């Protein structure tokens, strides 16, 4: 039957010669370069909501996000971690991490290269160890927050794509990767993040006709991307 071990790892595809794994957890793994790429962590989101609206969400999303990220780092032992932007819900949210969370993040960063790409939520450097870049190139690939029209070999995030699959009379909705032969868009990894349906206009405009969605969850599932 199915090779569960392989399925839980994720779906392997290639982009401009780079063999990439869209993992069921929602991170992108480039085994050859030992690069782990993750997008839209939105750390400090509950703090930002409290500050702005007075609503007091369960303040556990930062540690939950870090816990899941750590699980992936433990398994993959990456040489480079690229956070593709919107790593913090805003620049002030970056200051809201408590001492334990900051220490935790430092521990994750130890012994590897760490790259913070700027996002629209966190435009500008944050007070954390690592390189702060607008975009990053490695080999053929370029890593940036928001996909740029006309570019190729591009890895980006920002849109929080999700896919909706009709199973008979019900529908299942999962955060997903979207890829075609030009680019891949990562799902949001942060615990308190919603999603944008892949058949929305914005995503249909960006992706090529022949694009695929890789659903995240316990195990990954690949399917043709649903379009507008």
């Amino acid at each position, binding site marked *: 039957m199915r090779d569960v071990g392989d399925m839980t790892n994720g779906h392997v595809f290639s982009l401009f010669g780079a063999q990439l794994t869209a993992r069921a957890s929602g991170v992108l793994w480039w085994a050859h370069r030992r690069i782990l790429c993750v997008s839209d962590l939105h750390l400090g989101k509950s703090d930002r909501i409290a500050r702005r609206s007075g609503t007091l969400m369960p303040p556990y999303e930062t540690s939950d996000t870090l816990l899941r990220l750590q699980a992936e780092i433990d398994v993959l032992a990456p040489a480079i971690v690229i956070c593709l932007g919107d790593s913090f819900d805003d620049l002030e949210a970056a200051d809201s991490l408590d001492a334990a969370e900051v220490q935790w993040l430092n521990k994750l960063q130890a012994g590897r290269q760490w790259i913070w790409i700027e996002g629209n939520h966190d435009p500008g450097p944050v007070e954390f160890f690592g390189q702060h870049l607008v975009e990053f190139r490695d080999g053929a690939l370029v890593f940036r927050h928001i996909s740029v029209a006309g570019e190729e070999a591009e890895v980006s995030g920002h849109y929080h794509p999700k896919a909706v699959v009709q199973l008979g*009379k019900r529908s299942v909705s999962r955060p997903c990767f979207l890829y075609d032969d030009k680019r891949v868009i990562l799902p949001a990894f942060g615990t*308190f993040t919603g999603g944008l349906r892949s058949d929305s206009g914005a995503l249909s405009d960006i992706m090529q006709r022949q694009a695929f969605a890789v659903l995240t969850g316990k195990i990954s599932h690949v399917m043709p991307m649903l379009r507008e």
Partner: protein
Amino acid sequence: MPNDLPPTLQAWFDRKGWALHPHQLQMLARCDARATLLIAPTGCGKTMAGFLPSLVELAEGHHKGLHTLYISPLKALATDIKRNLRAPVAEMGLDLRIEDRTGDTSATQKRKQRADPPHILLTTPESLALLTSYSDAHRIFSGLKRVVVDEIHALSESKRGDQLMLALAALQRLCPNMQRVGLSATVEDPHAISMFLACYPDTCEIIHAAAGPLPDIEMLQIDVPAPWSGGGASYAIPAVLLEVARHKTTLIFHNTRAQAEIFFRNLWLANETDLPIGIHHGSLSRDQRARVEEAMVRGQLRAIVCTGSLDLGIDWGDVDLVIQVGAPKNVKRLLQRIGRANHCFNTPSKARLVPANRFEVVECVAALEAVRAHDLDGDPYGKGSRDVLCQHILITACAGPFAADNLYAQVITVGRYTGLSRSEFDDCLEFCATGGYALKGYDRWRRLLQTSDRKWQLRDPRTAQRIRMNIGTIQDTDLLKVRLRGRGGKSLGEVEEAFAATLSLGDTFLIGGQVVCYEGLREMTVEVSQKSGKKPKIATFSGTKFATSTQLSKRILDGLKRLDWPELPLYMRNWISLQRQVSKLPQVDRLLVETFPYEGRSTSVFYGFAGRNAMQTLGLLLSKRMEDAGLAPLGFVATDYAVMIWGLEPVTDPAALLGAQGLRDGLETWLAGNAVMKRTFRTSAVIAGLIERNLPGSRKSGRQATFSSDILYDTLLKYDPEHVLMQITREEARKGLVDFDRIEEMLKRISGRIDHVVLERVTPFAAPLLLEMGRVPVKGQAEEQLLAEETAKLMQASGINQIDLMRSE
């Protein structure tokens, strides 16, 4: 003497040739009592009895400002009472201001009312809660003498009632001598309602009006048999039209809005003589409802298709027949609806029942027997909800700084909160102030702060606006507005968000009796175009679903036990005897379980007859046990009588699944992770102020910025399972949607006596379940398996499979 009316009022009664009813005199005699409850059947001057003491006092002409506050559970009722009170007051020559204040009142009017309140203000629990949140509440309510709560029985079992009583406790502090008057329909337990009404420990006298004549109530005679399933009752259309033609005005009641819509459309299609017929339900736009209401008052409508929105005391036009379509579920409610016909004393009300399908025929006949035996159903009255208390604390903070001791003392004067412990209260206060999280707190951004005099107040006064925008407790479902596409498109009403999510371009559905075509979703509004002639997809906005009461369920099972049930039509007796032949009949002291294949799934039906909510819970618990047993359940659907579960593998040993201890354990552990709990959590989180439904300014477009309440629930379950909101969720679920008591009652009733019948095909009793709405998915191994199959199928259909992709490098 209390029965000496002031001359102006006496003259009016004399002119009309009316004498006061005994219960109206009793109400006058008790005009100084702290709390009085009047129990009276419909149409015997109940409202006049409630207002008479106030009119007598106001006739003296000395009172300044607000004198009497009238609370109604329905906006429409408040408007209706305004109309029915202004006329006699004008005829009496009294110079009184009588105004209503509801969600439909204009902002200008509302501002005026705050600055200069009328003598009599007619409002709803939500609008009252909003009024008490203003810092000038003490000024608005100064001089308030009396509060009249109309149709109090309809509020006494709900969160709206909790909110109202908490607001009244706040008013009682502002106006210590305020009197409370409750007006109720005939109920099974008046004492419980009097406890609900009075300010603890006040006593509350109960006045009973004389009961009217027995109603004339029968099944509607229809030549064709009721269908196997469904709620449309279209088979009854010709018979209903005939009755409408024979009567002056007919009210046609439905249990859900969707059913009302479908019935209304079918009625129109068959209405060859062009009888004027309207539709009225809570999802329609204000304009549309107002138009129907006005036409009805003018006597221009021969029939109104309606739902619970016309359940309560509204006195429109000359209704001489009530038709109930669908099973009544509850004998008390049926009596209420019957009372809508002949809204005058001493004439029997006339009502006819139209079951929508075969199970409902049985229930209708059982309900008729219950009405004749005057066997009313009683529901247990639980404790007040703590999510409503959280909202009340925030509302109190909006009005100004408060002391926790005072607020607690005030809250426990509310009947349903007298048992609230100080620590339960403090947990709610802590939640409002800091979020109440165990592992991590908000130091800088807490919502409430304690000032130097230990009073609590909002950290940021600007949040008051957000809190006010989210006042209310009726939010079980998210509603989206429906509007015609184009500039200034007409608003047609609302549908549930979940329903809107199932629509794709070109889908058609019914709203307000017209077929519309889905064009798209734009900034939280469903845009549609008009379509004529097309057969619509059904609008499934559900309205409130009630569980069939324990008493009624028992009557049904008792009826099935009889070898023949002569009150049932012949086709029904045939249907039942066919079930007896191919399978078995459900019995009070046994549980019938049927297992058969259907559409490639193995399907099992458990005929528990424990009411919709308990059967739903049983479905959740059984599907969990089936998942553990490797039967890969996919989903289930529950009705008042049975739960049907389908999956990849057949059930072979139902007794093993139904062990009471196993189910109880499942309730404790697994129930935490299921959809019903998440739904309950969502409702409580919205009421308690953790999730805001309404935001200032425009709504965010695109759903990217929002995330589902399920994520919050999962996070709390993982990191803070004893958080107060999780406690509240469990309290509420046990009370409402879970209804585990009725499962226990059922298990005791059957004591392990299970009849498992394995068949090759669907049985007569199972057939109706196949078309039930409200299927609940089971998120287990079967979901992953089907997802894998479905995505593989999609890959295959697209002409490329994974292997090709890998090779193409």
